[in-house]
């Protein structure tokens, strides 16, 4: 949070949802909504970690204009994003691509889950013999469940 504040202060501006400015809006509400949807995935390149939907920077304003014009001309979201990445590189999109270079990025979270669950199952299989309860142990576990002081 402190970072954001430093950035905001550095740019010398209060961060407002700049894209909602009535002076920039498209007349057709459906097209405007589509443009806003795209804004949220486009990075303001001179700001740090801000989408052009939020930023008041001049560059963000220009990018919004480009996107709005293309939406107005009837281009689809993937076409507009391709246009932007051709110009500015992958950096401009806030959603990283599903590509080989980003394999670890997208894969690791789910790999951790799979590895964890596999480990759990292996452990459970190896030791499944001993889960029959003796009466003494059943009593102790009952007390644990009741949350009494052991």
């Amino acid at each position: 949070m402190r970072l954001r504040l430093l950035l905001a202060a550095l740019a010398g501006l209060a961060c407002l949802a700049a894209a909602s400015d009535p002076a920039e809006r498209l007349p057709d509400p459906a097209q405007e909504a589509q443009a806003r949807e795209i804004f949220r995935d486009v990075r303001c390149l001179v700001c740090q970690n801000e989408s052009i939907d939020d930023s008041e920077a001049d560059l963000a304003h220009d990018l919004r204009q480009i996107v709005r014009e293309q939406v107005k001309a009837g281009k689809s979201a993937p076409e507009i994003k391709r246009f932007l990445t051709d110009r500015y590189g992958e950096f401009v999109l806030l959603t990283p691509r599903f590509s080989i270079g980003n394999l670890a990025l997208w894969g690791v979270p789910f790999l951790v889950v799979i590895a964890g669950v596999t480990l759990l199952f292996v452990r459970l299989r190896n030791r499944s013999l001993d889960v029959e309860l003796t009466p003494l142990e059943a009593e102790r576990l009952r007390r644990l469940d009741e949350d009494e002081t052991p």
Partner: protein
Amino acid sequence: MIAEAGAFALILALALSIAQVALSIAGRVRRSAPLVGAGEGAALAAFLAVAVAFAALMHAFIVSDFSVANVAQNSHSAKPLLYRVAGTWGSHEGSMLLWCLALTGFGAAVAGLGRDLPRGLRAMTVATQGLLGTVFLAYTVFASNPLMRLLTPPVEGRSLNPLLQDPALAVHPPFLYAGYVGMSVVFSLAVAALIEGRIDAAWSRWVRPWALAAWSLLTIGITLGAFWAYYELGWGGWWFWDPVENASFMPWLIATALLHSAVVTEKRGALTGWTVFLSLAAFTFSMLGAFLVRSGVLTSVHAFAVDPTRGVLLLIILGVTSGLGFTLFAWRAPNLTQGGMFAPISRESALVMNNILLAASTATVLLGTLYPLIREAMTGEAISVGPPYFSLTFTPLMVALLVLLPAGPLLAWKRGDARGVIQRLWVALLIAAGSGLLALALVQPKKVFGILGVALGGWLIAGAVTEIAERTRAFRVSARETWRRLVGLPRGAWGMTFAHLGLGVFVLGAVFETTWKVEAAEALPVGGGLNVGAYHVSLDAVNPISGPNYDADRGLITITRAGQPICKVEPERRTYTTGGQTTSEVGLCYRGPSHIYIVLGERRDGGTYLVRAYWNPWASLIFLGPVIMGLGGLISLSDRRLRLGVGRRKEQAA
């Protein structure tokens, strides 16, 4: 003079920390109680010395002593008192001093409150805590001393960033740092236990109160920060997946996992190695957070706050301390005893699933934060990882965790009964479905994810209540007996219920706010108005005002619903005289848990003002939920069974 005394006290604190390490280790090796006691005395004295240094810096800020470089750079004599005080920890140097204060404070707390720990473990914990104190104090004294004088003091200071001049943000860093650094005790206890070679249920019980305290403080600290971002940054967002936010969120996730795995270790003696691993990881992530925020590696624009050498120093500290901890772990962990066994359907399994999902979530946040750096270093290609990535990875993991959550506390240890749990949860299931259907019927526009989210929130809240109902045998025994059981419930149980309940409240608020918020913006002349949701916002007047250190336009705005006035708010657009930055003070109108959020923007041609209005339904719950969770932690902390004495009695009996 006072600043010099403070600087001297800081150096003294460093010397005392070194003495703390040496005396504690010597005492442990020679089994000498006086030496160990002297080590503890040194811990206490180090804390007092840092407190003196901290007070000296605070004094310099309060009296605006601009001959101190840090004060000249970060304060201004026209600033209100609260923000002059808060300026103490507003800069890099000051916040590192706050970090040291918390670190030595926790060291003193272990030395003072840990009397019931076994002697060897206590001495090694105090020694490790002293080692951490030494490292960070050395950094503060030699690389980031906040009490340096200027040869030619300026007449006026350069002022604190105006966005920082806010009550919530004034108290946000102390909570956050206390939470971050609270994890150091857990780290020290883990290192000490690895050296002593004894990790068991009793150890786990000693770790829990410290982890709980740190977790509660961190929860409150993060919430304060989110609330500040919500009303100060002026576009109604409260979480941006910003690297600095992520830096505080990772230790929180790990600490949450630790609290759950420590229960398994304490009650069933299982997961011992994993609990120790998490204990080491929690403070490692705290230090990583400090490094990410303070070094500027993640943001080039951040560079004015620090020079890169400091970042390198922090990285070395991070690498050496956590590296030592994990090396020790790798060396000693194989000797740890394997704990009790359990069936696939059991409380243990549920808690392991909790840990798997929390670990995966942490991995997601870590990757999302660092991957752009790694990728750029390896291939030279720059990519961005923004909020959409986290929605696609973090959110599904969390949803899985939250769906499983209510079942966990209802499962029996070792061998649970799945069918029994489902039978006990059917009421909660009905409530969840009911709340989803209610949202479907009542809220416009209809959005699938919003409806599912509301059902999930209902599921969590109903699940937490079900758990209490089960414990008290509600509706199965007499009301009197239920009441007797309710009063007799241990505080730890209440703590868990509150934490889970708070999570449900948060989910409801977050889902409602993000799904159904309404936004409107118009350039309004004075006397004009705009509609947002069911409300009409009219700009009655705009007056120029002058504050202590800023000039502002203050709007007078009336909010009406169906012609009936319900609120008057006065949002401001401030321009700070020093530095010329502009900030906006939001006008908030509370309608039950919902907010109408008004921002006064810039003056446009023709005398109009840009006015933005948001209808943020149930936004209060976003902040109320985590507060309930933090309170749950504190309630749990007051549980008699968590007091350290219990462990000692056990040890003596053994």
